[in-house]
């Protein structure tokens, strides 16, 4: 599925950007030409030059260095939120098919409750309750991402669990764990991969929104959202300032969403994949059948 996805133009372009962003995340602090926190009173709000490729900000800090240094915090925070959402959504989603009606009912009601909570307000409330840190905010975001993973996983698992090949496996004495590993995970994984890629993009938007508001990160630590917020205050003096973090955020979110679309098309996943309240439609209605749906 992954190979099929990256063979499409959308998939190839998205993966190229994601690889670039990952490299920047890993090597960004090393590649930064200046100390991202070092202030230079002689170069306040200076235009792009050979010394400062993207110019400097309102206290003379090199914008390029701050963007590079801010990459790990922005990307890893989004990844952390997605990892929490994955763990809290995928595992209960699979178990809800197996652990009987009580667990199924309880988990569905909890998921329904989470879906009603607004992301930013809940994240702000969590940081107010647990302290203003990105970890606390990401825990809140992860919890709110989890219903998307739960529903995607449960839908795929339910379809596969009621299939005859699962019944055939049970008839030879296969344990629920065996069925999960051998028959269900292969059917659930494509849908979960699509949800993960989509959630990464959405997670980055939330991280950027929170850091834009100054939630979860202490100044002067650089983040893409924080840099955007700082530069917006000097829009008239430095019109291109807010453009750099904006383009970076849009490019990254677009790459993850594009990769999610390419994965979904490659997997032939049916209908809509709902992530963080957004509904994603397959571009091609001809590819709406799941692998097992073509046989069931």
């Amino acid at each position: 599925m992954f190979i099929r996805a990256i063979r499409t133009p959308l998939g190839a372009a998205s993966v190229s950007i994601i690889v670039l962003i990952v490299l920047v995340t890993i090597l960004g602090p090393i590649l930064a030409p200046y100390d991202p926190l070092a202030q230079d009173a002689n170069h306040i709000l200076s235009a792009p030059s050979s010394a400062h490729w993207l110019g400097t900000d309102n206290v003379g800090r090199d914008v390029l260095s701050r963007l590079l240094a801010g990459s790990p915090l922005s990307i890893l925070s989004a990844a952390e939120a997605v990892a929490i959402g994955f763990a809290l959504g995928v595992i209960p989603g699979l178990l809800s098919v197996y652990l009987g009606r009580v667990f199924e009912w309880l988990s569905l009601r909890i998921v329904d409750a989470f879906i009603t909570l607004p992301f930013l307000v809940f994240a702000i409330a969590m940081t107010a309750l647990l302290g203003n840190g990105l970890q606390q905010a990401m825990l809140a975001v992860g919890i709110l991402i989890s219903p998307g993973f739960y529903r995607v996983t449960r839908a795929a698992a339910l379809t596969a669990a009621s299939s005859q090949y699962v019944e055939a496996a049970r008839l030879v004495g296969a344990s629920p764990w065996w069925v999960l590993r051998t028959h269900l995970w292969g059917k659930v994984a494509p849908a979960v991969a699509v949800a993960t890629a989509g959630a990464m993009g959405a997670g980055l938007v939330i991280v950027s929104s929170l850091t834009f508001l100054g939630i979860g990160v202490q100044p002067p630590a650089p983040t893409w959202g924080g840099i955007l917020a700082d530069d917006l205050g000097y829009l008239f003096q430095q019109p291109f300032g807010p453009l750099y973090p904006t383009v970076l955020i849009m490019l990254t979110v677009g790459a993850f969403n594009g990769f999610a679309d390419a994965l979904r098309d490659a997997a032939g996943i049916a209908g809509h994949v709902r992530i963080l309240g957004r509904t994603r439609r397959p571009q091609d209605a001809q590819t709406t059948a799941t692998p097992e749906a073509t046989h069931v």
Partner: protein
Amino acid sequence: MPDTQPASETPTLLAVADLTVSLGHGRRRAQVLRGVDVAVAPGEIVGLIGETGSGKTTIARSILGLTHIDGGSIRLGGTDVATLTGWRLRAFRRAGIAQYVFQDPLRSLDPQLTIADSVAEGLRVRGGLERADVRERVAAALTLVGVSPALATRHPGELSGGQRQRVAIARAMVLEPELLICDEPVSALDAANRIQMLDLIQHLRDARGVGVLFISHDLGSVAGITDRVAVLYRGRIVEQGPTAALLTASQHPYTRLLIGSAPTLTGGAADRTRRTELREQLAAIETG
């Protein structure tokens, strides 16, 4: 009077007695099987015939522990399977005494697994065999059902309907079962494949001594290979006995209707008249 008792005097492999099953929930719950008695002796092919919705598959699912039963007993190889639950049921299934062949092999074979993996699944679940032994037994099972082991690396979607059904039988036979429950195994096949499949089932009985419960709505298929036939009508066994005797001297109007419904090349209007009479007789029994 219809013979509702198992005819076999030999030790039974499968003995279903007074089986009652209800399906659905709440107001929609309905009794689909009422006091069903069926027996299969080792090496015997017993046909279970009836119209769609008569409860044939429910009997099979009950025998295999896939459907909860209201009452009665199901003894399989000396074990009352109706009392087994949880890990005891799994352990019993791993022994592989009874195996099931589904109607549609395309749905019963995992599209993501290779033929070898599907056939080997029962052996792997049971455990205790080296990889080489598993491979060897999978190849032997495929050869037994007439599928080249060279196809073992293919996926179900790459095989023909007949090959897939053979693979489904190989998956069942690899565990060396004593009882094979075949649920409409030929209904999705063309005439040539149907004959080959019936020959294969008879060959498995002759070569391996396996007992077979052959479920079908097609009288021709049942008549061709079974030793005894049980006729199921609206959740009850209305008649059962040796195949030849039942086909030539059936007692129950439904059985006669089934036999009379078989299309003939010369029948035409006479067949239609006969079927109308039988339907009227059946309706009279139901209302009276």
